[in-house]
């Protein structure tokens, strides 16, 4: 709780562009209020996220994003030829809501794949993949991403 509050204070300070102690204090106070307001919204699990690792992962991911985007560019320019779209079910190792959500977001941001939904029992992730020649290969690719992510998160 304290951690999140401090984090919010930091966000506040960066937003306002004023890193003075006074402003940080105000940010802490406001963060406390915000957290109080959203006390029901924040489940306990969120606190366990190690935010800095997540951020680091995000930057790594952006690079991959940039590179692989070129492939999509080709698809866009000539959509008819290379597309093999498919809707796939991916069994999940991720268990918490935060993990699943993060994974889902990353899949969407990864070129060629896009999360469609999570089964109600949280055991399967459904995705849309534009270039499926081999469904199991595609599934393996996603599982790789999941493993990497879980390494960061756990």
């Amino acid at each position, binding site marked *: 709780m304290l951690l999140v509050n401090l984090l*919010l204070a930091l966000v*506040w300070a960066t937003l306002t562009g004023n890193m003075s102690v006074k402003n940080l204090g105000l940010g802490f106070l406001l963060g406390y209020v915000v957290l109080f307001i*959203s006390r029901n919204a924040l489940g306990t699990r969120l606190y366990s996220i190690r935010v800095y690792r997540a951020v680091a992962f995000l930057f790594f991911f952006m690079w991959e994003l940039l590179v692989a985007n070129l492939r999509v560019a080709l698809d866009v320019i000539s959509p008819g030829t290379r597309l093999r779209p498919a809707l796939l079910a991916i069994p999940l190792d991720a268990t918490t809501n935060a993990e699943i*959500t993060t994974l*889902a977001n990353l899949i969407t941001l990864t070129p060629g794949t896009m999360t469609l939904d999570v089964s*109600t029992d949280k055991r399967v992730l459904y995705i849309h993949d534009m270039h499926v020649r081999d469904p199991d290969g595609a599934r393996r690719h996603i599982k790789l991403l999941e493993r990497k992510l879980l390494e960061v998160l756990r």
Partner: protein
Amino acid sequence: MKSLILSTAARLLMPLMLLFSIFVFTRGHNAPGGGFIGGLVAASAVSLYVVAYNVAAARRLLIMQPHTAIAVGLLIAAGSGILALLRGKPLMTGLWLNPNAAGGSAGIGTPLLFDIGVFLVVFGVTVLIVFTLAED
């Protein structure tokens, strides 16, 4: 019917939106923003919660129910103007704690109070409409 991804994301997004709403609101007198936009963003945060969960859950978040927020907001807004009336000045005349301070640092003044009223009303109104429609 609930989307797991959305509801998880909403937990993170909502505090951020609320924070931004306060940010926009407090800056309002000196930069773009103010009570109206602040109130709308705050209400949007609550609306997101309505979509991700439901009205009942969103209602539990609120310190002040929308009806009350509207009435209190109106009262604050009008009250900030009436204060001047009580001091023998025309309605809505700005009263400042430190009126002679240079360059926009006059501290607290009734116009800011007025903007708080606006914030509350806008927030209350939007939330009330969204709640009512979503519950219907």
